[in-house]
């Protein structure tokens, strides 16, 4: 538990969560790359063409993995973005009678790609700003609506050739060599797909990536860690749209002809099916899903009409059935099932002990009043949850907020940390009014918190969970993360996170999934995460609940050490032994009001407090 040196382990001896497989992930990757490289040399023309389409779909599905599987935002409208990319290049490279402004930009497919990506970003940002703030099911319904709108727009706009479409799109040229053969085009498609897979994987394994992974099921926590979840949502929405747009551009130069049909809502739904069937939570799931659905569709379109005796899209029957069964039986998709069959060694994050420590904020001097609540009142309709509550916390002090269940402690806590806004009254943090500022901005000022009902991301490692706390201490963005240009900063963030993990005594389980920890350990993880944000005030909501005696003693020792370093701590707690032996002052609440405040020993003999807890002493 003492300030152990930063661990430099890169792999651990046998323990929980590590499988000792024979294969290294790199070996598998090389094998896969070889297969991709050699495939066109041995496969038939028809199969290579099919693989081109698999690649295009995989690109769109990959965007959906980021958006839906990892970010938790469902879109049925991706096909419309594919259409934007395809039509942009079709108009610019094959359109006739272009208005002069467009004619200037026309001619080059590469310029058209750039313009398409630009246009798609603008459209995605507009659509995203309208729909992304809505929670849950509005987004998918919204995507259906604009997916259908854009599709009809493609079909009715004269410049886009109406329902008959645009033809005569030139092939792509590389160094003057036209890529008309599907075998040659294959390499362009799959190069783009592999780059997209690689950059997506890089992104997810970075500071911005952790923020994205926190979107699904952890937004309240993420905001409290200073993450702008609205921005993170917008980022993945735009990335997914750009993937789709690129696929559309490739499609247009592969087909050399576009019409509205492949950009309709039903194709958009099929892309989502691909992501779900493959495994929406996994980057490789996009490739698997695109392959399975594309090949299955081809095969079904071949045999079903013969079976039923007439032509038609009967494959939708099988797709529908397949999806319902998948969602009933294997909701995580095929990739996890497949991955279980292949023994792959789990690689553990490397922590660089030489990385420069992160800069720290200046701590306020001992005894300075850091947090001040003045006459804070919170009403919920007729119920007064907090009535004229006032309290102060000073640097280098531990203050306990106690009271019976329903006294209004959690309401108070939420207002202090910006989750809730007082009806009236003032909250000052380091002299600044923070009521109504929002959790994210308050976190940026140097306040960090834990949650009564722990909020950890169960599938992420302990280390990565803790590193979420350091989000605001890094600056590098999405692009540098995708191309691994932020590794120096990442090493510094991880080093700090690892130090905090060791500090709270979780070094042993640093690389385990957070979901596999006991409740008490998860509480410690939350404290480490809060510490990782370099706060000057810690708000701890029942930190000792679920801890064993030894763990409680260790936690008390940690908090004592933090106090000595000048940290201010406000804790809500029910465990009186823990509170009374540790804290400097106590504030007692009942029925939303402060009934006592003072030193622990005075509180223990205060008649009003005894009355509140025990229901009267002089009976």
């Amino acid at each position, binding site marked *: 538990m003492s300030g152990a040196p930063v661990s430099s382990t890169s792999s651990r001896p046998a323990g929980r969560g590590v499988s000792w497989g024979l294969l290294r992930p790199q070996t598998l990757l090389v094998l896969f790359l070889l297969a991709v490289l050699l495939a066109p040399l041995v496969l038939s023309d028809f199969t290579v063409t099919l693989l081109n389409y698999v690649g295009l779909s995989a690109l769109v599905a990959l965007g959906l993995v980021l958006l839906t599987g990892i970010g*938790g935002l*469902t879109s*049925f409208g991706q096909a419309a973005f594919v259409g934007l990319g395809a039509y942009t290049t079709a108009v610019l490279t094959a359109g006739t009678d272009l208005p002069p402004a467009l004619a200037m930009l026309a001619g080059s497919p590469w310029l058209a790609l750039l313009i398409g990506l630009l246009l798609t970003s603008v459209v995605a940002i507009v*659509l995203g*700003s*309208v*729909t992304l*703030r*809505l*929670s*849950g*099911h*509005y987004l*998918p*319904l*919204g995507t*259906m*609506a*604009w997916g*259908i*709108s854009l599709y*009809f*727009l493609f079909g*009715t706009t004269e410049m886009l050739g109406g329902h008959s479409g645009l033809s005569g799109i030139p092939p792509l040229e590389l160094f003057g060599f036209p890529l008309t053969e599907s075998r040659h085009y294959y390499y362009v498609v799959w190069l783009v797909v592999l780059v997209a897979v690689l950059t997506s994987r890089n992104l997810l394994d970075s500071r911005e990536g952790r923020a994205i992974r926190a979107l*699904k*099921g*952890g*937004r*309240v926590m993420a*905001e409290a860690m200073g993450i702008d*979840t609205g921005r993170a949502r917008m980022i993945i929405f735009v990335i997914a749209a750009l993937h789709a747009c690129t696929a559309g551009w490739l499609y247009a130069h592969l087909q050399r002809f576009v019409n509205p049909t492949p950009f309709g809502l*039903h194709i958009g*739904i099929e892309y*989502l*099916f691909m992501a*779900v069937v493959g495994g929406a939570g996994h980057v490789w799931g996009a490739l698997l899903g695109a392959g399975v659905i594309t090949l299955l569709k081809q095969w079904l379109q071949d045999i079903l009409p013969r079976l*039923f005796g*007439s032509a*038609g*899209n*009967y*494959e*939708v*029957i*099988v*797709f*529908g*059935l397949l*999806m*319902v069964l998948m*969602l*009933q039986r294997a*909701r995580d998709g095929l990739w996890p099932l497949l991955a279980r069959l292949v023994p792959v060694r789990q690689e553990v994050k490397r922590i660089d002990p030489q990385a420069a420590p992160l800069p720290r904020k200046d701590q306020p001097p001992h005894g300075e009043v850091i947090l001040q609540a003045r006459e804070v009142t919170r009403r919920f309709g007729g119920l007064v949850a907090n009535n004229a509550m006032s309290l102060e916390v000073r640097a280098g002090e531990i203050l306990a907020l106690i009271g019976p269940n329903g006294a209004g402690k959690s309401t108070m806590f939420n207002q202090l940390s910006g989750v809730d806004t007082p009806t009236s009254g003032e909250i000052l943090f380091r002299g600044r009014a923070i009521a109504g500022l929002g*959790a994210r901005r308050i976190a940026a000022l140097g306040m960090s918190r834990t949650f009564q009902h722990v909020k950890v991301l169960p599938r992420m490692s302990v280390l990565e969970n803790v590193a979420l706390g350091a989000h605001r201490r890094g600056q590098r963005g999405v692009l540098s993360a995708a191309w691994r240009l932020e590794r120096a900063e990442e090493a510094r963030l991880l080093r700090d996170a690892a130090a905090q993990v060791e500090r709270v005594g979780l070094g042993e389980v640093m690389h385990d999934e957070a979901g596999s920890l006991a409740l008490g350990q998860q509480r410690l993880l939350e404290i480490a995460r809060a510490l990782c944000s370099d706060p000057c005030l810690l708000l701890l909501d029942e930190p000792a609940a679920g801890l064993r005696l030894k763990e409680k003693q260790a936690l008390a020792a940690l908090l004592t050490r933090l106090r000595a370093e000048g940290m201010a701590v406000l804790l809500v707690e029910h465990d009186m032994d823990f509170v009374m032996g540790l804290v400097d002052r106590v504030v007692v609440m009942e029925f939303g009001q402060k009934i006592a405040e003072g030193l622990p020993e005075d509180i223990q003999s205060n008649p009003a407090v005894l009355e509140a807890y025990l229901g009267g002493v002089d009976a």
Partner: protein
Amino acid sequence: MDPSIMLFLAQDGITNGAIYTILALALVMVFAVTRIIFIPQGEFLAWGALSMATVEAGHVPGTLWVLLLAGGLVFVLDLWSQRQRRDHRALLRSAGWNVAYPLVLAGLLSLLPLAALPQAVQALLVMLVVVPLGPMLYRLAFQPLAEASVLVLLIVAVSIHFLLVGVGLLIFGPEGSRTQPFSEAQLELGSLLVGGHTLVVMAASLLLIGGLYLFFGRSLYGKALRATAVNRNGARLMGISPALAGRLTFLLAALIGVMAGLMFAPLSTVYYDSGFLVGLKGFVAAIIGGLGSYPLAAGGALLVGLLESFSSFWASAFKDVLVFTLILPVLMARSILSHGVEDDE
């Protein structure tokens, strides 16, 4: 635009709006009780319409085979789920509804001279065939997933939509059909000619809305559904089975869908895949009401109907673009009004 054209367009818009209204009400209801966004609603509309067209032509509708198959599957599933502990009465009931009922109906349909029957009897037969598919669908696709998140349920709903469109193509073929209007009468109101079918649609919609109002306000089952909508676990503790609530809701939704189809088919040609677009328009209306408010959804449906009929006059090519773009300002307004961060499931 002269007043008579305007009145004509308004009448057209209100007629369609009435159909969107009942669809929107069904969508709001299904979402409230089961948290399912019922995308396949449109397929019930198309199946109702096309079954009616088949019956009018004197043939047994293909939906009967679907009923026999779906009923059989439900019975097998019930049998399988009770392999540990048999509840004989429940099994008998399941056999009655899912096996015997479709068989009896099949016998009836093959004996009756379908083409010669009065229109009301034909419509009743269509309802008897198609409506039970609603609860069966719930049993097969959604009941095993009742605790899943809204998004999973939505993806299942979309999958079912795919499945039903494909089956629709299989049993009805790619040709569209239009059915006989329920009334050929023409009513003259000043300069306006009101079609008899329009009046039937209005009356049926109002009756349906009134009926739902009474059902949810007065009957025990209606109150049970409302309780489930407010709090699933609480309702379960009070002895209301969520499975029963789900099947009942789907029965009502299917009934509404089929009725909408019967009213819609004389107005415009229906194809096996027409239901989706009509259903989505009901959705736009339901979303205007925030998927929660019945009166707002009804208002939204009228707005959609009017927007559609007037834009088909001014800019017919962009009719659907306009209707579906209407959702964006609505969502924008909701986005501005909503604040704070909440965790999705």
